């Protein structure tokens, strides 16, 4: 498609439950990024993929967060055993190939509320 599509738009989980978010990048885009936007509007980079391969995972809290981009499937971000501080908007973004000058296009975000 011509937009980054994220599902679900809203997700409510009890503390300790699992949350899974999905992202379909723009067709033809090889790179996928996940960002977390917390209440103070700050964006935190989590992870990026080049096709199905992890490109940069320096921002991932590895003990509970995991992500995948498998062929012919939406990318996913999964949080095991959610905590209250995981409440945030999770944005997926995609871009074409390697150049840093490529524009990164963002989806509408998935609002996760942990109660």
């Amino acid at each position, binding site marked *: 498609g011509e937009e980054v599509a994220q599902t679900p738009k809203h997700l409510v989980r009890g503390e300790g439950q699992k949350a899974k978010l999905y992202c379909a990048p723009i067709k033809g885009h090889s790179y996928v990024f996940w960002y977390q936007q917390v209440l*103070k509007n700050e964006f935190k980079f989590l992870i990026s993929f080049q096709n199905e391969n992890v490109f940069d995972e320096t921002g991932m809290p590895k003990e509970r967060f995991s992500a995948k981009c498998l062929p012919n499937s939406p990318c996913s971000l999964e949080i095991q055993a959610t905590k209250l501080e995981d409440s945030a908007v999770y944005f997926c*973004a995609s871009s074409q190939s390697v150049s840093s000058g490529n524009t990164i296009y*963002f989806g509408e*975000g998935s609002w996760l509320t942990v109660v």
Partner: protein
Amino acid sequence: AQSVAQPEDQVNVAEGNPLTVKCTYSVSGNPYLFWYVQYPNRGLQFLLKYITGDNLVKGSYGFEAEFNKSQTSFHLKKPSALVSDSALYFCAVRVTNSGNTPLVFGKGTRLSVIA
């Protein structure tokens, strides 16, 4: 390390007046600079970017930004503000020749255009 500073949390401007949203950056190397806008409960929309060439970059919705290397700035401007421009604006930077590294965002500036 790369960083972006948006020194103003809030900018208020009367409709029809010119607006400026400030951004300064710090990178080791040459920057690629981006502006995004976020409307309430929406994702990030790309406005414009500076890659190379003319220091004055024109983008969507009548916005423009001027790259100033000596001042390490990339201020967003519009000659005549509209009420519909009211939103959250983010400046972001990537370092050139670094592969598909993630964007580093500023903390955002909330623009309020008053009728």
